[in-house]
């Protein structure tokens, strides 16, 4: 068992067989309800452990009240819980509590930061993004550029999923917005290099951690990122819980949402950060679930999880390459996913056949059209692992892919 506190030393070579994914799987009730489920769509959303479901239910059972509104006991409890989750997340990623803003998802968080920074941009200022970006870290910047007259520079996909961000950074660069880990390639650019180059010219670095945080962690005290965002549902928490880390120095940007719970004085004196960014009733129960998810995740060593997932990636890659006409798109060092195409078979047909075999994967453009164009495909098939997956899942995947080949040959 890899839960922390276990004294046993596990060698990296044996980590694959030693990681007790079977026991981990027992924490996730969906696999009990659907024992045949082969869930390999974890980059899209992960399954939820029972502790997360319990935490959400517990809130509604015992202390359901709105935050920032009431003075009665359960309202105070809801407030306390809400701020407690903020503190826990801050501590987890090395931020101050007031630097943690709750949103409904990563997309909203990305829009908040891009919208807020748009007013700081001028004509000919440059925003650097990469071809690896998910649309969530792409379209908000295109919009920010449209409104400000700034220019979006898109760094090209290089060999093995790399992209040269640093050489695009110059005196005109004001923002560098990059993914920590591409949702198709399973790798990301070197953040340290980017930070160094960006800081030299005074550019802000925004990190899309939606995929990266669960596989590589995030420490904003070690990496002086200006803002980062992620979503709870990809790290075993509930849907509807997004996080924006916004460094204190940026707290003066405009809010994205206006309304209840964010105003000090009418018409436009906002509360201090983070509350000025959190208009409307937040997903308190969801955040209770997210708190449980993060505590659950933190029992494990993120490196051991990554090692386990890498072993599954290796196995899947080796087996897929044995199948005729399979072409892998993601690089060998991808942390937790394998993206591929089968020449002559559309990815949607692959997904349908795999789905009938109970193997859940994702097909399409993965909200990453610039990357699909760079790869020269209209769509691709993605297999993405989480810590509860095991070699048996890979075996079922491979036998289903073989069935695809049989049907289409």
């Amino acid at each position, binding site marked *: 068992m890899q839960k922390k506190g276990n004294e046993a030393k596990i060698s990296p070579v044996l980590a694959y067989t030693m990681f007790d994914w079977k026991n981990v799987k027992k924490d996730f009730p969906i696999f009990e309800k659907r024992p045949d489920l082969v869930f390999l769509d974890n980059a899209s959303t992960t399954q939820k452990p029972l502790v997360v479901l319990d935490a959400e239910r517990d809130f509604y059972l015992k202390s359901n009240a709105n935050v920032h509104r009431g003075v009665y006991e359960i309202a105070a409890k809801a407030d306390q819980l809400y701020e407690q989750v903020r503190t826990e997340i801050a501590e987890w990623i090395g931020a101050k509590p007031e630097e943690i803003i709750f949103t409904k998802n990563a997309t909203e968080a990305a829009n908040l930061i891009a919208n807020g920074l748009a007013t700081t941009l001028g004509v000919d200022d440059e925003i650097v993004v990469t071809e690896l970006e998910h649309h969530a870290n792409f379209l908000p910047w295109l919009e920010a550029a449209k409104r400000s007259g700034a220019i979006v520079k898109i760094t090209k996909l290089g060999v093995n999923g790399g992209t040269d961000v640093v050489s695009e950074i110059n005196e005109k660069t004001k923002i560098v917005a990059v993914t920590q880990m591409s949702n198709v390639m399973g790798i990301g650019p070197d953040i340290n290099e980017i930070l160094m180059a960006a800081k030299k010219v005074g550019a802000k670095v925004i990190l899309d951690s939606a995929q990266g945080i669960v596989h590589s962690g995030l420490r904003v005290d070690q990496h002086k990122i200006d803002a980062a965002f992620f979503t709870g549902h990809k790290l075993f928490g509930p849907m509807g819980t997004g996080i924006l880390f916004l460094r204190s120095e940026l707290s003066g940007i405009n809010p994205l949402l206006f309304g209840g719970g964010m105003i000090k004085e009418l018409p436009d004196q906002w509360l201090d950060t983070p509350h000025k960014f959190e208009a409307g009733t937040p997903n308190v129960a969801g955040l209770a679930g997210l708190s449980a998810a993060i505590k659950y995740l933190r029992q494990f060593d993120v490196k051991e999880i990554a090692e386990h997932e890498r072993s599954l990636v290796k196995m899947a890659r080796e087996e897929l390459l044995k199948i005729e006409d399979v072409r892998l798109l993601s690089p060998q060092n991808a942390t937790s996913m394998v993206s591929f195409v089968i020449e002559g*078979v*559309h*990815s*949607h*047909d692959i997904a*349908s*056949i795999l*789905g*009938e075999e109970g193997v859940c994967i994702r*097909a*399409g*453009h993965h909200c990453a059209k610039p990357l*699909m164009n760079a790869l020269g495909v*209209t*769509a691709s098939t993605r297999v993405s692992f989480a810590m509860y997956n095991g070699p048996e899942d890979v075996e079922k995947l491979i036998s289903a892919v073989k069935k695809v080949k049989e*049907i*289409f040959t």
Partner: protein
Amino acid sequence: MDIYGEIILDHFKHPRQSGLINGAEAIADDLNPLCGDKVKISLKIADGKIEGFGFEGDGCAISVASTSILGEQLVGMTLADFEKMNNEEVLTKLGVPISPGRIKCALLGYSCTKKAITVYKHSHE
């Protein structure tokens, strides 16, 4: 019944009326943003009747096969009869069960044809 039955696979591998018609009276293109399927449809229309159907597309087996099957039915059909058609009828003609996630693929050719005919009718009013 298997969605990838013989008929679907046959139409996917050997689509009928493949290729656009030169000098077509009605033409339209459409795409399924979900999976990037693209289709372009051209129609030869005379005296209120579809006399020719040609298409090209880049898509999944379901979208290509369903467009091919649709094309076979449409040649010789009057525009009035085409307007009486509906989604259910198009799906039924495929002869295989289409899961909710694939309905858009299966109806791509039909919706594109409707688009082409609407444009044609507007320009001939």
